[in-house]
């Protein structure tokens, strides 16, 4: 039943949305659980939400179903964790922001700009030796863009990690009952 490590080559990509109390130490507790089961996190982002007392953690990881189920149960045992959803990609909007500094001088700048135009992304800084590109989108688009730019030489790269929410009018935090955490 148990499998270690939880992340193996070829495992399916999962996106977890975790609503937590917005207070110190919560991330350490969550990260500790992932580390214990050798759960290789692909990306992780944390931010405040529509409610000041609640933060939202988005985790993407390649993981098998059985250890994932166990880890979700273990996460649910943490008192600061309010709600966990393993998001279904078909009903989810998922986006990631990435900043890419590409080696581009006068000889190839126009080629890079052509790629920028095709992908509908933006240039946010220009230098005689480089271009910095800001791109947002789902993981697949970002990966495709990076594949094309690699050829010119990527000097520096930073990705925000995926953020995601379900389609439709509902909010995840609606399911968090009786929360008056700000009273603390």
């Amino acid at each position: 039943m148990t499998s270690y490590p939880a992340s193996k080559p070829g495992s399916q990509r999962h996106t977890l949305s975790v609503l937590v109390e917005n207070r110190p130490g919560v991330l350490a507790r969550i990260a500790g659980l992932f580390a214990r089961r050798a759960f290789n996190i692909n990306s992780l982002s944390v931010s405040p939400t529509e409610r000041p007392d609640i933060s939202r953690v988005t985790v993407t990881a390649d993981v098998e179903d059985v250890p994932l189920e166990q880890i979700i149960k273990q996460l649910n045992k943490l008192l600061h964790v309010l709600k966990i959803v393993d998001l279904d990609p078909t009903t989810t909007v998922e986006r990631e922001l990435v900043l890419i500094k590409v080696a581009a001088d006068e000889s190839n700048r126009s080629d890079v700009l052509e790629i920028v135009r095709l992908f509908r992304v933006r240039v946010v800084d220009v230098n005689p030796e480089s271009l910095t590109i800001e791109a947002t989108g789902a993981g697949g688009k970002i990966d495709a863009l990076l594949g094309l730019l690699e050829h010119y030489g990527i000097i520096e790269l930073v990705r925000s990690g995926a953020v995601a929410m379900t389609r439709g009018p509902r909010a995840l935090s609606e399911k968090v009952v009786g929360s008056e955490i700000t009273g603390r």
Partner: protein
Amino acid sequence: MSPTPLQAFRGVNKSAADQHKRTIADGEKMTGAQALVRSLEDLGVKDVFGIPGGAILPVYHAINDQTGFRFILARHEQAAGHAAEGYAVATGEVGVCIVTSGPGATNIITAIADANMDSIPMVVITGQVGVDSIGTDAFQEADIVGATYPVAKHSYLVTNAQDVPRVLAEAHYIARSGRPGPVVVDLTKTAQNGEMYYSWPQRMILPGYNPVTEAHGHVLADAARMFQRSFRPVLYVGGGAVRSDAGNEIKALSDLTGAPIVTTLPARGIVPDDDPAVLGMLGMHGTIAATGAVQRSDLLVAIGARFDDRVTGKLEAFAPGARVIHIDIDPAEIGKNRVADVPIVGDVKTVLQALIPQIEQLHKEYGKPDLTTWWKLLDKWVEQYPVAYEEPTDGTLAPQWVVQQLSAEADPNTIWVSGVGQHQMWATQLIEFHHPHQWISSGGLGTMGFGLPAAIGAEIGSQQYFDGKKPVWLIDGDGSFQMTSEELATAFMEGTPIKIALLNNSVYGMVRQWQTLFYEKHYSATILHEEEKTGLVGVPDFVKLAEAYGCVGLRARTKEEAIECIRKANEINDRPVLIDFHVWKDAMVWPMIAAGDANDNVTYMPGIKPLLNPQGNVSLQDEPDTTEENN
């Protein structure tokens, strides 16, 4: 003042004054330290274990003759923690400890981890340096909240005095509710010295904590139908049933369905041993009947048990023909090691009370399944394979015989406590248990040194809740005992007349047994003393050690001396007694399943494997002779 880097990172309140402003000043004005003591009183805490120190001094200053709880001064923080555990198991109340920061807090981590593994309700209050010193490597500073993340049910860092009563109310509730466990309250000196307005009761704010106690949906009906279709059911009962106090319900379920009861180590005594349905403990050192019943069952009903590796052996070969009903209050236990056909999340007692009428109803409609064939097999195992042992070859006492005599001579209300090792297994196998909460031992973590402090805690609990009418016997090994033997001082000074049976074989017996069986008899680092080499009766001389602490020390080398010592010990009620039994160092715990091996491969005594039939298959047909053929 500016925050230290760590404070900025952790978001510790930079200005506690801001928070005071929005607090309504009703209630009685006092310090955080006084509020802590008052909160414990208002929670109904009657006994607190601990050791003072610099960072917790304001709290100790607030404890005085008027304080509503008894304070028990331990000699080591780990022992204070184990004492609180023993107290909690014996009484069903929450064990409470107050220790200092840094080394005091790190010392008690072992006890916290132990309580976490065995689901023992405990609140551990640790001192912490002032808010302005956190993260600066201040004297006796340790990040105890961070260090206990993986081994505690929950933890708090308290930086504001006004939070003290609410945090204590929450901590106590979290510790005792749901799946019980240890909660750490790290109390900064700032919070202890700060002023606050005390009011009680407190409103708890726990939006992420909603333990499920009642079964939901159709699972009870599913479970009842499974009982109806089963002809080889078995109840596999774990420590969760003890925490839930479900002894009567387990007995009722067994009586109703005819299913045998097998237990894990902590659940021994949940139903009295004289009940014919009780087959004893299963697993690595379990009885043949208990292990066999589970292996051959067609319905395994796990009740507050977690399929530990010491129970299951090789997981794939555990109860291969059984469908599984798993009742547990912790959803994370269900499906962790074994898939449950019917998962039931809820409090064991509540679930069983709801399940029993459903089974009764089915019996009324369809009659009761006939378990005659099943019991024929079980009875044969019980009769043919009682726990047995080899006689010593060197003239020393057989430790198993000593345990049997202790059990035979003891008051039936005795609370039995053990350390960890061979003696623990003999105790669980050979003591006749009469009540739940009568057996206290370190199961999941297997903490050597658990015994003596836990026995002291149990005795404190017995004095507080049972008028001292439940005597406490500690069965310990010389190795385990020496890990916390300083607590003899606590035992004497606190007036806890516990009785200690030291099964002294001068070796780490359980490790030696593995070395004998699996490591070519290479006794690496397991010999504690050899009389032939030192010419001394023991190092230490445990009789003198006991006497040095004001206790009575007795020594038994022969059966006559042993009986005499046991009787003498049972008559002493004004101070602790220690009996140094000189027992055989090559005694072994049987039956045994090697770690990771299939349970069918259990060895009853050397060379006898009753659960293996010639074909090696595990199906149950009515073949009464297969087991004998193998002997």
